[in-house]
Each structure stands twice: as C-alpha cells, then as structure tokens.
C-alpha cells in the first residue's frame, strides 16, 4: 500500500521511560546513546504500528497504564519517540486535558483567545470562530466571568469547544469528556462525527466503549505498551474484556505490581469459574428457541470473605449493542456474605424474548458498594436464538395483529 495516502502513520513506535528518580548525568542529557546500566526503564509503548487515511477514525482502548495517552503525546509532539517513526500530514489538534492552557484569573473571553493561540490558531481565526466556540460551549452568560468561577462542566465544555474549533485535519482526543454531562458528551461525539465526515482523521481514547463504537471505524486494544488487537470496535470491545479478565487472573498470581504499569480493574478476590446455560430440560445448550426460558448457572470461587456482592448479567449483540442488563442491586436483593475460600453456585433464569441471531452473555461480580469488580466477563458465552416468528430488531415482543 502506498504510505503517502496516510495522514497519520506510526511505524514501530516505541517510548521508554526511566523508572524512579535516577540522578541525571550531563551526558544522558546531551543524548548519549549509551544507557546507564543502573537505571531501570519501562517501555510505555513498544513497536506500535498503525496508519490512518483521511476520514478514518481509530479508537484506542486498554487499561490504565497501557500506553494510550503516551501514544497521543507522541503523535502530538509533546514527547518524542525513543524508537520508531511518526508521520503526520496536516494540521493537528490534541485534547490531552481540557482547558490545560486556561488561566484561572482571566475571563472566558480572554481564555478563548489565549487557549486558541496556544493551540496554534491565529487571532483572526479565533475572532472568526468566536461565536461558534461560545455557542458550542454554552457559556454565553459567563463569557466575562473569570474561569476560576466556572463549574468543572463549564470549564470542560469551553476547553473542548476551543480545541474542536481549531478545524484540524487530524484530531487527537484523550479520555477528556468524562467530566461533562451526558448532553454535552453527546454533543462532543456528534461534533467528532461531523469532523470525521468532513475528512478529519480522528484518534480517540476512551473507557466508554459505547462511545468508541459510535465514533470509530476501527479500534485497537493496548495492553502494557503493546498493541494486542486491532479490528472493528465491536470485536475490540469483546477482546478488551477478555484481556482485562486475563490480566486480572495474572495479577492475582503475581501479587502487587508496580503502580502505573497495570490497573487493577478487578481485585479478583472472587472469581467466576464456570458459566453454563441450561435449557428447559436441564441440558447445557447454546442454541435457544425464541421465547424459551433458560437458566444460567455459574460457579464462583471466593478467595476472601465477600460481604453481599452484587451479581449482574448482561447480554450484548456482537456489534456491541446492549440488549439487557440487570443486577441483584436493581432487583433489591441482598446476597449473603460468602466466606473466604469457599465456592458458591448461583443461578438465574432468563426469558429469551429475542429475535433470531447471535448474542453474548456476560456476568459481573461487583463489590456491594459497586466501587470495584471482583470479576467481570463481558463475553462469557455466545448463544444463538433460533425459531423466531420472523421479527427483526432485538426484542421479540410477539405482536399479534388483528383487524378490529
């Protein structure tokens, strides 16, 4: 393939950081290639390759410390690669932190100009887009108020608005939209889609897998600095939950790890061991008739005493669309306390009122205060629904037509 077609290309992109606070020598400062043997290094990003053409959008997902933000910082030239190459063809704008260049004492109006120029816009360009920026951020009444009096939501809105109006050919967005409210997030995603449709190349990091699926045409999964998967957002999302699960299992064997290298999404003090779907005859089955009631049985090993954990079941379509999600918490059920080093079996029934197709069943086990997961499998088993009445969509609501 002709590499000239790419607007963004990374070849064997690698970035190494020094761990700890080893004293810097003047020689290392001046770029000597001989690395000291005493220093310990950590590859934040290792041998990552990708290429994007105009109008393509790439999502990057992965646990904290997987190297996602480092990739954005490398692309936006905030930091430089240790090895490998980056080529960027066109004007870029990066949102690593919303409103990073804001000065708290200056007003919203002054900050629009200050932040806009930091992002590389000319004064007249900002002037010309000023009304659009203000309108998008929705801060009209507070334009002449110092931004230190803004709510965090307003601050984030203004930050996104300025950066999004740079009219970049390449837009890099880190996990920055989490602060805003739902309506604003939707507005941001819509804006990103609009830019993408106009030919802007987009790279988007998020923990919000639904947002990734909405905005991105492809997605890669990062884990410990490596690209471990690249494919459609739906596939990547499924792969991601498997990776998270595997890494949690690994971590529970490895014991505590160095901070920042991997995130303990799951404590793994309780592990979902076995999941089976049983049909009406009590036989394990992965093919279910539409409308049938099945039972799902799971075996869970508790390594530590777990007071009233919350069980959740979820069903997704392969494209990532949520079909169903229900938890013992919503059902107002209080589960008992499970003692350390015991195994428990749980069971729940599901009435499969779904149209024909393939579905993923997932099971989560969360702390009673919902702060963390003991274990979480978003794709525990795949099942097929057959024998529907020809309905399309997701839910089979069994419409009975009648002429009255």
């Amino acid at each position, binding site marked *: 393939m002709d590499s000239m077609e790419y607007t963004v290309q990374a070849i064997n992109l690698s970035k190494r950081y020094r761990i700890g606070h080893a004293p810097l020598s003047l020689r290392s400062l001046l770029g000597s290639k001989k690395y000291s043997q005493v220093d310990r290094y950590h590859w934040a990003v290792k041998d990552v390759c990708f290429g994007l053409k105009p109008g393509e959008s790439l999502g990057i997902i992965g646990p904290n410390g997987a190297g996602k933000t480092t990739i954005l910082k490398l692309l936006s030239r905030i930091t430089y690669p240790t090895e490998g190459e980056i080529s960027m063809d066109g004007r870029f704008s990066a949102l690593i932190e919303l409103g990073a260049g804001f000065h708290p004492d200056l007003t919203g109006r002054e900050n629009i100009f200050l932040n806009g*120029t930091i992002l590389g816009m000319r004064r007249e360009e900002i002037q010309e887009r000023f009304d659009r920026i203000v309108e998008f951020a929705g801060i009209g009444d507070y334009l002449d108020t110092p931004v230190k009096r803004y709510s965090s939501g307003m601050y984030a809105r203004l930050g996104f608005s300025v950066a999004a109006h740079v009219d970049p050919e390449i837009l890099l967005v880190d996990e920055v939209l989490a602060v805003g409210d739902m309506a604003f997030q939707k507005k941001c995603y819509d804006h990103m889609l609009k830019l993408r449709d106009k030919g802007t190349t987009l790279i988007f990091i998020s923990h919000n897998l639904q947002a990734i699926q909405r905005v991105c045409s492809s997605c890669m999964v990062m884990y410990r600095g490596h690209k471990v998967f690249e494919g459609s957002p739906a596939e990547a999302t499924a792969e991601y939950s498997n990776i998270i699960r595997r890494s949690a299992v690994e971590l529970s064997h490895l014991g505590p790890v160095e901070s920042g290298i991997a995130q303990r999404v799951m404590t793994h003090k309780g592990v979902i061991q076995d999941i089976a779907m049983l049909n009406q005859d009590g036989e394990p089955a992965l093919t279910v008739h539409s409308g049938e009631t099945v039972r799902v049985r799971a075996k869970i090993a508790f390594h530590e005493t777990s007071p009233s954990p919350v069980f959740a079941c979820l069903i997704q379509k392969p494209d990532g669309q949520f079909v169903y999600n229900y938890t013992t918490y919503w059902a107002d059920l209080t589960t008992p306390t499970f003692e350390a080093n015991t195994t428990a079996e749980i069971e729940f029934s599901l009435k499969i009122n779904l149209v024909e197709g393939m579905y993923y069943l997932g099971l989560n086990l969360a702390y009673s205060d919902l702060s963390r997961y003991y274990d979480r499998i978003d794709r525990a088993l795949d099942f097929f629904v057959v024998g529907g009445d020809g309905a399309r969509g997701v839910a089979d609501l069994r419409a009975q037509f009648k002429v009255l």
Partner: protein
Amino acid sequence: MIKSRANQSHAYRDFLIAWTSRIVRARYQQSILGGLWAIIQPAATVAVFTIIFTRFIPVDTGEIPYVVFSYSAMVPWLLFSASITDMVESLVMNMNLVTKIFFPREILVLAALLARVFDFAIAFSILIVLIMVYRLPVLHIGWLFLPVILAIQMALSLGLGLIGASLNVFYRDIKHMIGLGMQLWFYATPIIYPPTLVPEAWRSLYHLNPMVGVIESYRAVLLRGQLPSSSLLISAALAAGILVAGYLFFRLVEHQFADVV
C-alpha cells in the same frame, strides 16, 4: 524521526503576543501601584547607592551627577537580571502546558524576556526625564544606536535564558545558581562605579564581561552624547555566540522536557 508537512510555527506568533501580555497583566493584577513598580525598584536602589557613593565613599563620575550615572545603568541591568531570572523559571512554572499541549517551547522563554521589556520601557521613560532635567545632550546621532545596544543585550539575555531555562527543568539548583550569579555579575559590571576605577592590568579581562560593553555604550550615548564605546563589539560577538549556543542547546534537550517532570 518526526515528519510534518505543515509548518505550524508561523501560527504561534499570536501565542507569543498573548502569552507576553498575560505575564504582564498577571504581574500587576491586584496591585495598587501596578506599573509604577517598574520605576520604584530601580529608583530605590539608585537612591541608596547615591547616598553611599556621594556622602560616605565619594566616587568620581566626572561631570555626570551620580544619580543619572547609576540610574542609566541600573535600568538596563534590571532588564538583564530580571529577565534571566524569569526565563530560567519559565519552563518549570508552565510544566502543565509543556506536558499537555504541543507548541514551540522557546515561546515561553521568549515571552518571559519580552514581558520584562515592558517594565524596561516604563523605567527608561523616567531616565529620559532625568537626562532632560540634568540638561544632558538629547536626541543626537548616537541615539540611533540605542536599539542596537538593546538588541545586543537581549540577544545575550535570551541565549543565557535558553540555557538556564532548559537546565532548570533537569536540575532545580540552576535557579539558585542564577540568583547568586546575578548578584556577583552586578559588581563585575560598571553600574554603581565607573570602569575607570578598575585597575589597568585587569581591564582586558574585565571587558570580557559582555555587559561591560553594553553598559558603557548606554552611558556613552545617553549621558555623554557620544557613539557607543568600542567594547560593544566584544559584547556583540559574545552575545551572538551565546545566543547561537543557547538556541542549539535548547533544541538538543527540548525533546526531553515533557518526560522529566
């Protein structure tokens, strides 16, 4: 290796202007006297030295009154020392920007320098008043050299500032070293005494201090109605060398800034 077709650097001129004015505004915000501080500081220092060197230990400054003699040097000196102090801190103080946004990093250093030129302009206007009050020659051909002298001084400051700012990212000792260095440099420059007091044997060594030629030239032009002193050539050569070295050093290490914090 990073390749980028679009050269975005021309777009950052407006950032330089915006950032410079931000520094100036922030400096005098919530202060009653505001820009007057740019005058009070040199004036107070000069007042003390005037008392010491006219009453206690009289210093011969020829026909020039000591007040104008020292004020004419104090104003450019304060631009020099204050701008270097600010430049050295400019990167470390704005690390949140350096680690979050891409822009040419030298803009932060350059803005710190330019923001001090604003103070210099205020203090300099008082110098003009003093010159007229004491009926010294004004607006002669030598004044055409004032921008040249200022440019040489700023080139020297910027070169040192670029080196100091980037070193300060890695070693915070630099900040303290600069404070001490500026204090010593002050006495190695003819600000509160005339260079004629320097022993003959030390003169050539003394003129290797690039600020000697700069200060002597300001005085020659502003107080004596002459052209800049020939020692300005030494200053110009040193300033150019230091600026080039400073810029090259900055380019060499700037890619590590965001990683060090």
